[in-house]
Each structure stands twice: as structure tokens, then as C-alpha cells.
């Protein structure tokens, strides 16, 4: 199994099917985070995740620096989502948005899972996450969706680790101010 991103990209360019799968597995979390962050949870997040990988696989030969696969995919994802949002303004309803259950999370069995109040609190928190300014939102989501380290997030977003730290701190502070458990009354 190829070890580095650069190895994966080179193998994908050679037509190696296993490497294509590896590329998807390795980067699904950050692409998912990017699409979720750009479209919000009610958008066609999963369609755009799929589209991102299909576009990337089709254009893999244009990736000049294979070591930057992560940030390249992130860029394709964000641009794809922004394009979709623009298209959405012009058109009425894209096919992907009416796919049944496309972006509906599987809430646990109500008998064992969170109660209605808890779900309501979580939905409000997610609303607040979606209203965060883009740089804070995407950093926060990479952290929580992808279990990415500060270093990995920094590489994906092309910023320093200190900036990642500052963004996460600020994002949490903004959320806290609005509605996290320790919000000041």
C-alpha cells in the first residue's frame, strides 16, 4: 500500500484502482468537512463530496505537486460547493437536493438516544456553527469531522499551526458566546 500522498497520486496516475480507493478513504473526512462547511447540513453535501472525488480523479494529471493532494482536494471541494450555490441561485431545484434522505443524519433510536430537548440544542449549535465566518467554520469542521491534527489542518488550509489554534479558539469562543453550555447568561 502506498504510504505518502505523493505515492498515492503517482499510483492513481498509473491507473492503480487500489490507489484510487486509498485516495478516497484517506481524504474523505476533509472533503466531507469542506462540503458540510460550505453548504451547511441541509445542502446536498454527499453529492458534492462524490463530485469532488470524481472531478479530482478525472483531473489527477493536472496536479503538479502530488504532496499537496489534501489542499488540492479541499480547493476542488470548496469551489464545487460555491459553484453549486451560485447555480442554485439561478435555477430552482437541483436533482441532488431532492434525493431522499441525502443529508439527513441517522439519529440514534429515540428510545436510547438523545431526547427532543437535546436534539434541539444540537440543532441550534449546528445552526451557530453554520453561521460562523468561513475560515473559522472550515477549521472547526476539519477538526471535528476528520480528527485532523493542527498540523494536518494547517497543511490543508495553507496556514500556520498557530493560525489553526487561533481560529479554533476564536470559533469556540464565538459559539460559547451564543449558546454552548458555558455561555454567559
Amino acid at each position, binding site marked *: 500500500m502506498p504510504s505518502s500522498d505523493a505515492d498515492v497520486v503517482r499510483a492513481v496516475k498509473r491507473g492503480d484502482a487500489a490507489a484510487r480507493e486509498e485516495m478516497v478513504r484517506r481524504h474523505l473526512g476533509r472533503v466531507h468537512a469542506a462540503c458540510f462547511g460550505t453548504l451547511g447540513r441541509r445542502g446536498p453535501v*454527499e453529492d458534492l*463530496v462524490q463530485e469532488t472525488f*470524481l472531478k479530482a480523479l478525472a483531473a489527477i494529471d493536472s496536479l503538479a505537486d502530488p504532496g499537496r493532494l489534501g489542499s488540492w482536494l479541499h480547493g476542488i471541494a470548496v469551489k464545487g460547493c460555491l459553484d453549486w450555490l451560485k447555480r442554485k441561485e439561478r435555477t430552482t431545484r437541483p436533482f441532488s437536493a431532492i434525493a431522499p434522505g441525502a443529508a439527513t443524519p441517522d439519529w440514534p433510536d429515540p428510545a436510547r438516544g438523545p431526547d427532543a430537548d437535546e436534539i434541539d440544542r444540537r440543532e441550534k449549535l449546528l445552526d451557530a456553527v453554520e453561521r460562523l465566518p468561513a475560515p473559522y467554520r472550515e477549521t472547526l469542521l476539519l477538526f*471535528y469531522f476528520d480528527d485532523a491534527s493542527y498540523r494536518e489542518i494547517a497543511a490543508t488550509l495553507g496556514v500556520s499551526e498557530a493560525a489553526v489554534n487561533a481560529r479554533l479558539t476564536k470559533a469556540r469562543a464565538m459559539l*460559547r458566546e451564543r449558546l454552548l453550555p458555558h455561555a454567559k447568561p
Partner: protein
Amino acid sequence: MNCTAVIERLGAYRDGESAAGESSAIAEHLAGCARCRAALDAVREDHAALAAALAPHRARRDALEARVLRAASESGPPRPAPRRRARLLAPLATLAAGFLLGAFVFAPRTGDESGPSVARLALATGLVERFDPDAGTWQALPTGAALAAGARIRTTPASKCSFESADGSELRLDSGADVTVAAERRFALAAGRVFARVASGHPKPFEIATPEGRIEAVGTALDVARHAATESDAAHVRLTVVEGAARVGGETVEAGSIARIEGGAVRRRDPAGDLVLATGWMNEIVALKGPDDAEFARRVNDLLAQLGRTKMQFLYEAQIRAMGDHCALPLLRYVQSDGSRVEAARRREAVKILADIAGPPLAVELLPLLEDGDADVRALAARGLERLTGMSLGRDEAYWRGEDVGAGVSDWRTLLTGPESPWKRPPR
């Protein structure tokens, strides 16, 4: 480091992303500053709220990955010929596997028991039932009950249990599991999750059959979970190999791997991540074995080893707490060890849990911690004693964080070890 600087850095500190020097400076400050500790608690709670809110969306990951992989393979470059042939043959193989499985699983009429005992119910956290084929109903199965080949058993949504088979192997059932003992060392899993610890050196293979595939293990610990079909995903089995290896349809799955099994074959493999968390569902069963059990001690040690190390720490902490006061003694031994002294943050986490879960027999053992060099440890030990005795002896947290605690320690010693003390009994 002052409070402003510490509070600015608490996020990274919680995330395990502080530089080494910075981390110890923050820990040092926290030890003496209740306000910053409260701020850290708030950061932790906020983190837990965010993680919980995003968890259902994160949980889409497996289904999404399957979808993207399918799309990617359909849009991909032409595959080499052998691979394509394998795909054409796959449905035939699936069919064949299905016949084999059917023949195996349903050879004895489910619930009809015959022959000598092949397994015994060793431990149960609640109701375990055996199917009575004549009455067509489920009957409660008492601990110690023997099962012959053909017995069908199930756990309820609230119970878990462990069976010992005649060869020394152990099969644990998670809540909501439905298992048929097909024969000695042969089990069929119809629903839910089981864990098998397989005795080696036996001539017969150890097998767990599921409608999705048959798993064969030798000298292995493995976790097998059957997942019913959902709107977005087909029925499949997740096999986690904890030790040794297992074979599925001619393929070998090594320890530390998770395999997705469908149609009699391994469809996907992933590294298993943290095996302690992956098998955390067994904690209640392991806790029943008690603190002298080697597996119990190992599990607590494994959980302890993760305290203070990972950004998912709260998961490990929750598991330790879930194992109940049996965990207290191993925690105490860790806190008392010289090795723990170089890991101040982790040691404090351990004392914090200890203060919450220790039972009365350990009260006396908390005494030396009141004189610990770490102010946090002193304050936490005092908190634990207050919880255990319902008394504070007139001293508050600030007192225990101070340097001169001699009088307080002496008062506690008098109370706990005096002739009338109900807390004198030393721990086992």
C-alpha cells in the same frame, strides 16, 4: 504563565496540541488556579457538546465512503482483466457461499438441543434467554446453565453475557445478540455482536457463521458485529481481529484490522484504530470478573494509558468510570507508582476519577495523597474523602492547595484510622 495566557491556550491544551514545555507550564498554573481549572472544564464541556452535535453527521462517513468508492470505480479507468473476471464471478461465489452457510447454520433445527454440553453461561449482566422450540417461546437461562449443540440464546437490549465452551474458549454476547450454538466451537450469529476468545491447540476449527460469511479463527480474539441492511447500506458483518488472525472465504484478516464481510468474502479492510474503545462494550462483562482478573487489570491499564494523551480522552475517561469502583484499585496503584509522577497531567486525571469512584475500603489509601507534592492531587484526594465520609473536617479546597496541610492530614488520619473508624478496613 498568567491566567490570560493560560486561558488563551486552553483549547490547544485540551486538544493535546500544546508544545511540551507549554503544556507543563499550563498544568502547573492549573494546579494552583481554580478559575483556570473551571475554564478548562468549560472548554471540555463545550468540546463534548460540539462532538455530540456533529457525531450523527460524522457517522454518515461509512455509507458515504461506500457510495464514493462505488462511483469512483464505475468512472475509473479500465481495470485489468483478472479483476474484471473476478467481478463477474462474484455473484456465483456469493451464491455458493450462501448455500454453504445455509447448510451449516441450519443443519440442526434451531433450538433443538442434542448431545453433551458444549457451552455454559458463565456471567450475565441481566436476563439471558434460551429458545424453547417445543413451546415456541424464550425462557430465562440461569447462570451456570449448560447448553448442548443446537441451543439458541439471546440477550435483551439491556443485558450482556459470557459463555464458556467445553474447550476453554469464551464467547461474549453484547446486548441484543442472537446466537445459536451449532456444535462444539461452532456458533451462528443471527443478530448483534459477539466477542470470541478462542482456545488454541484444538483440532477442530473455531467458527462463527453469519448470513454474510463464515469466520474461522485459531488462537484468536475477535469481535464480530452483524449490521442489518439500512436505506443506504447493505447488510454486512464487521469483523475486528483483536489478536491473532481469522480467515474468511480463503482470505486472512490479521490482528488490528477491521474487515467488512459481505457475500461470503472480505469486501474491505481498515486498520482497527483503538481496540480498547472498539471492544469497550465488553467492559461490563469484564468488570464482573473483578479486580483480580488479569484481563480486567490489562483493560484498566490500557484505558489509563490513554488518559491525558488523546483528544478523545473523554471517551476513555467515560469507559473507566463505566467500569465502576472495581477500577478504583488499579487507578490507586497507578497513582501510587513512581512512574506516574513524571506524568503529572495523567496522574491528576487518574486522581480525579479515583476521587469520584473509590469505595469506602479505599478511604485510608487516599490519606497519603493529601500530602502529595501536587496541589491538584491534594485537593482531589480531599474531595474524594469528603464524598466518602460526608465530612470536610472544616477545610476547603484552598486549604488543600496550600503548602501547610499537616494539621488537616493529621485530623483525617485520626478520623479514618481511629478505634471507632468504619473506614479502617484495608483494601484487598
